[in-house]
């Protein structure tokens, strides 16, 4: 099986951690911190009442969410689909006192994106997204205001910059792509996986066809079946395997040279795409040399 995660470029993300600027690095499906020599030791200290660091919080949230189907429901469907946090993420005023909850005085509301807050604010952890934060470096919201652990994780991870959210989605998709064919028809994961394919395929097809209201029907077919697309004035019917998400969408190859890619195979530094034009019909191969 192709190591899609290994084909994605490495990503480095600067993050404020305490009073310092640290870096998170993602590569080959693993996220690490470049500035904490002993994350496990820090976790142990935190469990004993020590202060948690933002870098470790991100790593832990990532581990909890890397197979989560909620990621697929919430994360962007395309580059044009960006998440906003205008009234989700308060940015503290410079005079905010340590330990003070910013949901009261000492808070102003951000007008930026989630990523702006999460990538630039040092002491403001995942809880920021829900309207509170502590400047003491603590990361837990008041329990009565907290969303679910999932919500808090996702707000933190999807607010990261430098392409990390896309890599999180890629990890989730690759995890499930390895399993989807073996799932029974009644598997509880299938509705979310089918919807993930529908949403991302539709988000690729509509702008490619220049019609953002075009009816699109997406059918998930077994990986051995030849993918295809038919189009008429009633809409578009796409028949693709689930791996379209990992091999095509994750790799940013959905539309290449004006054609829609229905499948991709990777071989020796090159990718061969099965592509169709807007009229559909038989797919034709297109080979792209990867850097």
């Amino acid at each position, binding site marked *: 099986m192709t190591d899609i995660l290994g084909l994605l470029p490495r990503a480095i993300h600067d993050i404020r951690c305490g009073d310092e600027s640290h870096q998170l690095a993602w590569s080959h499906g693993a996220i690490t911190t470049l500035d904490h020599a002993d994350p496990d030791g820090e976790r142990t200290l935190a469990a004993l009442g020590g202060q948690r660091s933002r870098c470790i919080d991100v790593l832990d949230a990532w581990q909890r969410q890397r197979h989560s189907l909620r990621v697929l429901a919430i994360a962007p469907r395309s580059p044009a689909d960006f998440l906003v946090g205008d009234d989700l993420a308060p940015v503290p005023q410079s005079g905010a006192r340590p330990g003070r909850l910013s949901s009261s005085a000492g808070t102003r509301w951000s007008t930026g994106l989630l990523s702006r807050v999460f990538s630039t604010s040092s002491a403001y952890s995942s809880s920021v997204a829900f*309207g509170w934060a502590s400047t003491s470096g603590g990361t837990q919201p008041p329990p009565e205001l907290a969303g679910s652990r999932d919500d808090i994780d996702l707000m933190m991870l999807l607010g990261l910059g430098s392409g990390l959210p896309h890599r999180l989605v890629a990890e989730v998709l690759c995890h499930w792509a390895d399993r989807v064919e073996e799932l029974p028809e009644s598997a509880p994961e299938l*509705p979310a996986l089918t919807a993930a394919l529908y*949403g991302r395929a539709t988000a690729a097809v509509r702008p490619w066809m220049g019609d953002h209201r075009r009816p699109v029907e997406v059918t998930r077919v077994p990986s051995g079946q030849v993918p295809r697309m038919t189009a008429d004035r009633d809409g578009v019917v796409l028949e693709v395997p689930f791996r379209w998400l990992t091999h095509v969408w994750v790799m940013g190859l959905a539309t290449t040279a004006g054609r829609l890619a229905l499948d991709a195979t990777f071989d020796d530094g090159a990718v061969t795409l099965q592509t169709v034009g807007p009229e559909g019909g038989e797919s034709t191969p297109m080979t792209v040399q990867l850097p």
Partner: protein
Amino acid sequence: MLAQHPDPETALRIACERMLLSNIGPNRGSQPAESAGELASALVLLAGLAEDAAEQAVADYSTALSLRGVGTPLHFRALQRQHAQQQGSAAPPLFLPTVCVVDRRVQIGEDLTHVSTVTFGPASVEIVVGYDREPATFTRRHAALMSGAQPGQAHDLTVKDDRGVTGSAHFSGVGGGTEWHGRWTTQGPLSPTTAWLDIEGTRVELEHAMASCEVRVEERVGGPLVHEFLWDRLAASHHHQPEGHAVLELLADVGLLTEDDASFLDAYARVVAAMGHGRGPTKVKNAAVPAPWRSLLARRNTSGRVLFVPMAAMTPVFDGFQLVVSNLRGLHDGFEIDAAVRGPHGGVARSNPFEDDGCTNPLTWWADDDRGNSYLGAWNGRGMGPDSADGQIRFLPGLDRRATVVRLTPQSLKERAVVEVPLP
């Protein structure tokens, strides 16, 4: 491979994807007419979708939409959850009030007061009053509030019954010009059988003559459940007609609406058009509109009989709901009752498409009379909790002057209560 008709959860999630995709790119900011919760409710009620699967899908897509600027922001939802938890589910128990008609003008303190009715409850008495100028109560209350008094502190009045029990009452009300109305509410109960009340030294005689109402619960008899659901949905939103077709599309996706439903969908579309959708009603031949909508549409601008019927009735529990209706008031453009509902969300449908919460199985407030007329009601001011709603239901159109009985028929998807109110 997707089946011809996907399973309900897949259909729900794909419908939610459509909603979300309509907020990407040039369509960003378009507000969906239906919420994820509304779509989920339809499938829970009609297609056997498990509630936990529905709730998870709604949570996923409500969060996804919030992060695209649609619907309730996440931190508001956290606060709503906190508020709901604090509220708990302990709504006050239902009670059958005793209602007395007074309909007299009496001098109470400095104000000539029209006392309409007195309603006795287990913990308080409500005296409904009106004034033709700003009552001194208002003036003094305003002055007291301006000087720092707490609302309700400054201008109590004393009410006594014929057993010698005394209560202190506070005022709430609104008005302007020559029309002011409100109610005095005592802080404790008084005898519901008292012959009179002494209000600040003025004796007010009470007439104990409540209408006797027959109450029963019966199963709904109608068409297929999916048709009844759609009619109910239309009825529950008749003040703000459902604009979107996502629910219809979803029901078709899961095979609950098919070509066999063409005649139903024609009738449904005619009613939707005739109701206007906020764009002004379209003229539709009445014969083409099914009952009970036909009567409703035919009489929608008729002037009604003005009257007051002192009454109170409590229904048995039906489909998880129990309710008390009281005080039928005939108005020029409709009629109104007081209502108290106990059951999930008070049987109140979502008031806007972005609420996550709301009743999956809202009550629809129909009524009819012995002249063959139909009436449709909606909440007209209410307070509500997770398991209750208390307020007034306003029915349209006005009461037929020749009617001698009006039947209130609040209904859920499967059952309905019938309260027969004799009209004088």
